Every structure is written in C-alpha cells, then in structure tokens.
C-alpha cells in the first residue's frame, strides 16, 4: 500500500544503478581501500555542539574520511565511493513534562531514536525505521541510561534523536557477503552515536556521572597474501578496508570511573593472534582495545563540551 503521507515513487518500483565494472568481477577498476593508519591509530573526529539552537542540546559528529575516500574526493575517477565516513546530528529535547497519558515516573524517562537518512547508506533506506535502526536506539539507550542522574528529574522526559546523514559501510562494496559477514558498519555507527549523544546531553546541561564515550575495536584477518591469515587486533576499523572482520566490539566507557555502561561484541574472537607476552584471552583484548578507542574519543568529547560550557558562560554573561 502506498504511503499516503509521503510522496511515492513510481508504483512499479525502481532499481538501483548497476555499474558495468561491478558486473564482471575480474577487472575491478578500483581495488579495496587500504588502511593507512597504525593498528592503534584512530580516525580524527570532528565534534561540535550547539549547532541546533531550538534544541536543549545538540551535537554534530563527523569522522575524518579515510585516505582512499579523501583521494577519491580530491580527484574523482569512479562514481563508486571506496568507503564512507560517518556523519550524524544529535539533538536533545528536555527535560520536559511527560505527556498527560504517561504513567508516573520518579525518574527522568529517556527515549532514544536513531534514524538513517534515506541517502545515508549505499542502499536506499526506507522512511520508516527498520529493525537495525530500532536496535541502535535500544543500544544507545542502555549506554546512556547508566550515565544520566535520572532521579533529579522526576515526571520528566528526555528525547534524544539522532539523524545519520552518512553511515559506515558494512563491508567493501566489491565483496560478496560471506560467512564472517555481519552489519559491521552498525558497530561504528553506534560508537559515533554514543559519543555524539554524550556531547549533546552535556550541551543540554543534564547532570551526568561522567562523559561517556564510544569506542570500537575489531579482530581482522587480512593483508597477508598467504593462505594462513593472522587475525590481528585493530582499533577503530573501517569495514571497507578489511577483507574479513572476525569479531568486533563497541563499548560505552566512562573514563574517570573506569566503568562500561554498554558492550556489544559480535563474532568469533577466540582466534586472535596477540603478542607473545600477551596472556589475555581474545575477548579481553578486544574489550581493552575498544576501551582504548573510547579513551581517544573522550579527549575530543571533553574539548567539545568545554567549548559548549564556554559558550554557555558567554550567553549567561550577555543576558545580564
């Protein structure tokens, strides 16, 4: 049934463009993008608060494009982008009174919404939230619920809305989905959501225990041409840059309390080849890696929140 509240496309449906170069897999013109960073080097994060004045708090987050994407941008040859870089906007509305119909709550009621823009991913997204978007919303809520001092606002609600303008890829576009495949891009998106939401909540001056930051680590097996691939631990992986991601983990981490409010680990992490003196099990190493990545994101977050605070002080001074 056609959606009566939107403008619908042709009733027969349309098909995404098929490129000649992807039809004959033998001669893929552009190869897989290569990771140019060290295994523990993070992508730069652009994070700015207060761009959306009508909201109580807001933040805009953008990942630095990977080397291959930056190259493709500066001198475009192919219309197929090699990879993509996360871009998202987060707004916080509240605390505000709960609707009349809601039941009594002694705490702040947190609602999270994550929605991809239709043009955010390689495949066009629908207008109605799908299961992965709802999943992200639930994960984000668990990540934030433990941080906010909720009892300070009884009978109130807090709406956190994230619009993803550009998402991370789940795999390199030339790869067929294989056994290791999972929506790896979602993991990166969640980390970005957590960091941005944290900045927006701070910008809305909601009391928090700490600045929660998101970080991603993954165990990947690629690069080596020989048949015996050595799975390695990498921080802040871009799924487009790896042939096979064995497992990945995202954490929401509170640095000053050394606590984790949300952890999401996927895949098989038992085969990680760590250093000789490293006695940690695979998943320990993975979580430690994700925490390290979160620490990195935290430094950016702290800077953005400081800016937000300065702006607020300036506003208050101006109002006097």
């Amino acid at each position, binding site marked *: 049934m*056609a959606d*009566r*509240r*939107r*403008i619908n496309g042709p009733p027969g449906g349309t098909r995404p463009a098929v490129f000649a170069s992807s039809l004959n897999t033998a001669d893929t013109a552009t190869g897989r993008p290569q990771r140019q960073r060290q295994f523990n080097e993070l992508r730069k994060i652009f994070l700015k608060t207060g761009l959306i004045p009508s909201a109580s708090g807001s933040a805009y987050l953008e990942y630095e494009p990977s080397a291959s994407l930056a190259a493709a941008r500066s001198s475009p040859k192919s219309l197929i982008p090699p990879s993509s870089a996360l871009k998202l906007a987060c707004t916080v509305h509240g605390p505000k009174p709960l609707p*009349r119909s809601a039941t009594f709550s002694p705490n702040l009621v947190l609602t999270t919404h994550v929605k991809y823009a239709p043009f955010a991913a390689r495949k066009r997204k629908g207008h109605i939230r799908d299961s992965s978007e709802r999943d992200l919303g639930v994960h984000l809520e668990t990540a934030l619920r433990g941080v906010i001092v909720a009892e300070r606002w009884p009978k109130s609600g807090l709406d956190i809305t994230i619009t993803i303008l550009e998402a991370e890829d789940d795999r390199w576009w030339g790869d067929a989905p294989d056994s290791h495949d999972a929506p790896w891009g979602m993991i990166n998106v969640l980390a970005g959501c957590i960091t941005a939401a944290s900045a927006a909540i701070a910008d809305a001056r909601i009391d928090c225990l700490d600045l929660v930051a998101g970080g991603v680590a993954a165990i990947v097996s690629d690069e080596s041409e020989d048949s015996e691939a050595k799975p390695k631990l990498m921080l802040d992986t871009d799924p487009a840059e790896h042939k096979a991601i064995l497992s990945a983990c995202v954490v929401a981490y509170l640095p000053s309390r050394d606590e984790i409010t949300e952890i999401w680990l996927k895949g098989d992490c038992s085969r990680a080849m760590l250093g000789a003196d490293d006695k940690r099990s695979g998943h320990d190493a993975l979580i430690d890696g994700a925490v390290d990545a979160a620490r990195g994101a935290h430094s950016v977050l702290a800077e953005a929140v400081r800016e937000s605070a300065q702006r607020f002080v300036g506003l208050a001074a101006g109002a006097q």
Partner: protein
Amino acid sequence: MVGPTATLTPLSRADGSASYRCPSTGSNILGSVNAPVELPARRDALRPEDATVEVFVKPGTAPGGVGERYIENVIKNMLAKLILGREKGYARRGVVITLATIGGESVGRGDSYLTLLPALIHTALLALLSAAVPLSMTFSATVLAVNASGEITREPSEKEAAAATSLHALAFSSKGHLLLNESQGAFDFDTWEKVHARALAICHGTLTRTSDGDVAMAEDVDGQPLEGTVRETVEDKLHQDYAWKTDAP
C-alpha cells in the same frame, strides 16, 4: 457564461452544509461544517482563547495524500483569519470543515489544486454561513488562466488549465481586500496586475465611483459578480426557511 450554482444545507446531520457546482471547471463540491465541537483528542494543542479550525479535503476518486494536506493548510490559514473564534462558545472548541469532491476530475500527483480552490473555499464559506459560524467578512474567489499569448481565461476547464502558462487563484473579501493569492507558472508582475484587476471585476463587478462618493457596482462582460451569487444563495435559502413567516398575512 453559465455561473456557478449552490445549495445551502443539503445535509441533515452536520451543523451546516453546502454544495457548490462550477460548470466551467466541472467541479462539484459538497462541504459540511461542524461547529462548535469538542476536540477531546487535541486538548493539549488547543489555544486557550481561540477556536481551532480544522479543514479536511477528500478527493473524489483517489486516496488523499500530501496534496490534500497542503491545500487544507491554505484553506485553514485563510479561514482562521475570518472566523471569529473568540466569540462566546467557540474558545477551546473546534470548527471542523469537511470538503468532498463529489463531481469532476480528481487532482493528480504533484498537481496543484488551483483550479478547484475557488470552488472549495466557496463551499466552505457557504457551509460556514449555513452553520451560523460568526465571520468577520465574507469573500468570493475565482481562478484565472493565462495562456502563452497573454489571454486570460476565467475558470478554465481542465484542458485550458493544462495549456496555460500560468494559473492564478484569487480571493477577495466582501470589502475588497485581497485575501488569498496562489499563482504558479511563469509570469511577470504586469500580467499579475491584469489578472488581479480582472479577478476583482469578476468577484465584485466593476467598481465605479459616483459623483456623491458612493461606490456603485456595474455588471460587465463577466456577468453577475460572484459576490452577488454567494449573497443570493443565502438570501434564497432565508426566503425559503422563513416562507411560513413572510407569506403569512
């Protein structure tokens, strides 16, 4: 040309209703008004000192869509300014206007409602009058098409509208104010001024000032001004309704 025909209060259930037929555009609209009514579901959204006007447009042979929501908004904004929503009994209540296309072509996807707009707002006005909703003034409206050679056609048929370079729907209050203008298609301001003058003449007749400063109306090529049609429809209905009284010795 054949002028529009209208009937007041054809329905029994609604507080007020009207049907309106415009032969040249082929549109036939049935409208109903329920006012004042309680709108319990929107208690939070109601303005405390004013009535809430709601307009619903139902296409004749297609499901409603975004186009209907848009034209509803236009009609609502126009009428909300005329309805005296702060009168006794109207504050915090709703004025619900429902307009259904029961004859003529439906509007396609991405097409404008311009050709139907005058019929819709005339129906809404008559239905409001039939429901005795207090209004600050009445109005009349028309739609004009300008074709490539600059010719102006009054109330164009579907074919004429499709061939036009620009379409203009205008509404004038009973006191001569420009209440609504919706123009689309390429045109320049001089054309619009011509259209404006013609539309004013259609709605109000040609205004001529007599020597003693009174404003008199004169009929011209466009026949009886539309303002008069609206007035006559209401007068006819009144005569009918009060026949028992007036005919009594």
